[in-house]
């Protein structure tokens, strides 16, 4: 009996050790059970070390590097390298007064960071382009691992050196502090892109978590879980992915619903994860900037970019659009700068032509909106300045424009884009709508809930947040338990079978 029990325990220990090892297929994400256990263990010592700042910093760095190792294996060294390189470059940059030397140092930093990004993320894309230009087999594809979150930490690191170059920031004295900033696990793999000047002042501040921070953190984690692990995961697996995989198997109504579904899915996935990151950071005593602000409430494309992935759009504005000349070099240059910024912003999202096209669409739309504002006398830049009627028209128009962008963003090829549009415009088939909704009731209900919650006024969001903040700890724990129970039900629920509608 004892021996059996011991063998059972040893089996569980083996499994647990296996779970802790690097597995590219099983990255450590906030909505996983493993993270909950690791986070509990982490918090115990984090709390105990709260008065010893240096030890706490080293402790968080070690946990963050492990967090990164779990997803990217040995490439956690890349993170260490990026931190070391920019730490030393920034020191040298700060000490140098000669303008050309300062430019040299900042150029070196940009070259190192973009070199890393280019090598790991874009090598095969460039090879593919070369092969298309010069014929198949012109260059051989390389087997290059893409380290998780490289696009995020490279941009974070660039914000540090560029701000020092601009004399908006003084460099950190300790390498560990810089590594702490760059590797801080809540924002490490999927943002938000936290600027050095926002984060650095918080590193050595006495650790303090107020009731409000705690409540807001819990609220954001709960909403993030709901968005990411319930809405996004369910509708993508059970509807959206299959429509995009084979659009011709679906009517135009289903294809359109698939695009609306994807618009919600990408928002819930991305903003949900951001919410969780911001919430976790709050629980650890750190403030991150807001990353999403109900983007589908935007009544113009310009407003959309003030609400969507704010940390990226402001980064692109400050470190790309403005250095390109922004709107200071005449109207034509402004439009070109906008287009270039959005093209590169598109490319940042992924190494494929479709992301560039997506960026181009947004760039052109932003430029056209600028023209519109210039030539139409009563045109408004944001929905808040419009009358209700125009605002609704603007929201609907902007949403569909953004959806067209998402179609390009998600479709594997331009052929899929044209097939989806063909189905929508030539085989819409309204008649199947009731059957489709009935057949995919769970999907459509979640989509409805997602959009309704999204469109609720900000006051409703604040009220819900206040309720969570004001709840006693026991209630907060039970809320979290119910949410996780729902997530687990969704995760283990039956897959929605294909439903065949009579055409």
């Amino acid at each position, binding site marked *: 009996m004892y021996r059996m029990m011991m063998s059972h325990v040893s089996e*569980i220990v083996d*499994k*647990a050790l296996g*779970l802790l090892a690097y597995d590219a297929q099983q990255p450590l994400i906030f909505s996983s*059970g*493993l993270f*909950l*256990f690791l*986070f*509990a263990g982490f*918090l115990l010592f*984090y*709390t105990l070390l*709260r008065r010893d700042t240096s030890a706490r910093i080293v402790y968080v760095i070690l946990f963050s590097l492990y967090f990164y190792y779990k997803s990217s294996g040995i490439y956690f060294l890349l993170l260490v390298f990026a931190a070391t390189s920019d730490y030393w470059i920034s020191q040298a940059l700060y000490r140098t007064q000669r303008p050309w030397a300062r430019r040299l140092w900042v150029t070196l930093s940009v070259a190192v960071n973009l070199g890393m990004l280019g090598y790991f993320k874009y090598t095969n894309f460039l090879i593919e382009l070369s092969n298309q230009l010069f014929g198949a087999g012109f260059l051989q594809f390389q087997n290059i691992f893409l380290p998780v979150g490289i696009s995020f930490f490279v941009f974070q690191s660039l914000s540090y050196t560029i701000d020092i170059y601009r004399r908006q920031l003084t460099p950190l004295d300790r390498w560990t502090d810089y590594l702490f900033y760059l590797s801080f696990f809540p924002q490490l793999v999927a943002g938000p892109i936290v600027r050095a000047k926002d984060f650095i002042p918080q590193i050595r501040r006495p*650790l*303090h*978590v*107020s*009731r*409000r*921070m*705690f409540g807001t*953190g*819990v609220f954001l984690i709960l909403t993030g879980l709901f968005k990411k692990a319930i809405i996004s995961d369910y509708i*993508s*697996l*059970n509807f959206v*992915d*299959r429509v995009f*995989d*084979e659009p*011709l*198997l679906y009517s135009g109504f289903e294809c359109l619903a698939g695009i609306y579904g994807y618009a919600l899915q990408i928002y819930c996935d991305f903003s949900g994860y951001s919410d969780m990151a911001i919430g976790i950071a709050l629980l*650890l*005593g750190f403030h991150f900037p807001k990353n999403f602000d109900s983007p589908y409430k935007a009544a113009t494309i310009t407003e959309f970019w003030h609400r969507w992935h704010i940390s990226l759009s402001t980064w692109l504005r400050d470190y790309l659009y403005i250095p390109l000349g922004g709107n200071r070099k005449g109207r034509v240059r402004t439009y070109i700068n906008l287009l270039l910024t959005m093209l590169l912003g598109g490319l940042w999202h992924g190494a494929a032509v479709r992301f560039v096209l997506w960026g181009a669409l947004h760039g052109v739309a932003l430029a056209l909106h600028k023209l519109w504002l210039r030539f139409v006398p009563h045109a408004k830049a944001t929905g808040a300045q419009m009358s209700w009627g125009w605002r609704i028209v603007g929201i609907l128009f902007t949403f569909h424009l953004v959806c067209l962008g998402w179609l390009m963003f998600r479709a594997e090829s331009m052929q899929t884009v044209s*097939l989806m549009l*063909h189905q929508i415009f030539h*085989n819409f088939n309204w008649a199947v709508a009731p059957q489709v909704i009935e057949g995919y009731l769970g999907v459509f209900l979640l989509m409805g809930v997602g959009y309704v919650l999204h469109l609720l006024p900000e006051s409703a969001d604040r009220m819900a947040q206040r309720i969570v903040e004001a709840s006693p*700890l*026991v209630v*907060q*724990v*039970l809320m*979290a*338990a119910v949410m*996780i*129970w729902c997530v*687990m*039900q969704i*995760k*283990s*629920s*039956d*897959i*929605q*079978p*294909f439903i*065949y509608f*009579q*055409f």
Partner: protein
Amino acid sequence: MKEKKEEKEYIHRTWLAVTALIVVLCGVSLIPPQTIGGITFRRANILSDLIEFDDRTATDAPAATQIALDEEEFHVDLDRVAQQVARQTAAIETPDTLTPPVQTCFEWRIGPTDTLPAHYTPRQPAEVIEPLQPIEDFDTTGYGPLHAFYGKLLDGRPVRIAVLGDSFIEGDILTADLRETLQEAYGGTGCGFAPVASPLTGFRRTVKTTSKGWTSYNIMQYKTTPEPLRHDFYVSGWVCRPEAGAQTRWEGTQARRHLDPCDGARILFLSRGRSRAEVSVNDSLHRSFTIEGADELRQIEISGLPIHSLTFRVAEGAEGMVGYGALLGRSGIAVDNYSVRSNNGQAMFRTNPALNAQANAMLGYDLVILQYGLNIMQQGIHNYTNYGAQIGKMIAYVRECFPTAAVLVLGVSDRSVRTDRGFEPMDAVPHMTACQRAAARREQAAFWDTSAAMAALGGMEQFVTNGWAGKDYTHINFAGGRQVALALANALNDGMRREARDRDDRLRRQERARNVADSLREAVRLQLLQPAVDPLTMEE
């Protein structure tokens, strides 16, 4: 007071809250699956990566529970089918001499010579690759139709295969690659059957179909199909009613090899009243056919030049016409995809046996593959005996309508379900496979284990990971269909190789028997030629 509360340190609470949450969730993990108000809630096991609970008994139906089948849907009177087919066969073989014969075939031979060879060149079986999932032939006679099928392949004669299935093969999934692989090895062109019109023509990549003026009806909508058309389905599962001037254009594609051009084509239709149809080949050659009214299935057969595109237009008499489709390709291997989504095989019982027999008389099927069962399976249900009986009826039905064809039952494909530990193979798959295998054995048909072939390639989860299957973990896509088709073609090659070996053995045995007979004859002859000997005196 409020300010004081705001100042309070909550960092300890974070750890406390997370620890309390883990304790609550561990407690919740002990709650077994529950069904409340008809909704089943799974066990929410936060420790699922470490500790597994056996929840099968709590959620699954008892092993004895059979899958629920709509008996009416599967009803068929096989004796009546046999009578209908016999009447049809008799009418074809011994036409009524009092009434003029109905012209069922309208030939259009373009060019000076027939494209079919005068003599067939024997073929060698293609190489068999490991791992092999062989076809299990339960024929006990040793000379059943599957041997005849392999024999025709070895002789180099044209071979026609019909694949009857559900959404698993919809849009030519699997069959496109089975066809290409077999045509590559044994010759042949064209994509086989392509319907006149269907909402799914856009999904099919192996032929580009543009049609207008047709209303199509699917056999799964049998009950809502207008009365005169209900009896006009053959195993293709679609009927199309034209309006005046309705037309369809089929064009070869480069989606697979040997599709464009094809070396001949047929167009299948009914014309109950006098009608006129116009056919165009390659958009440059045109011909008009006047068809007298009759109940028989008609075909326009085009041969003599490579066909890139074919257009069929109903110029007159649309009211009496029913369109089926074109069969592209004439020589070598032809594979017809007859898929009807949501069909578990029962739809074939709603087809017209006489039309099936007429189609077989025109097309001459050598092998009918039955791919069904995917929609019947349910997680937790292990007893499919009643469905097995239906498979037996399907085999019998196919044999009545297509007497020359061998029947190959494809076992159900692999399928995964979601549990708290992630995706796992559906527990019903081996039971459904066993039931299908048993049905094939009872009926002495052939069987191929699709799920085993997929398991050898990593199983459904791997298929999804590789991008070979949809996210429903049930349906393969074109890439997955290619993998399964290669495995099935490999199995057919193996069968052919065995047949070739048996044929050699038979020839050797016949040769030996002939030699022995010759020797005996020689011995007898020599004996007879020798002078007679007096047995008493031993003297001549």
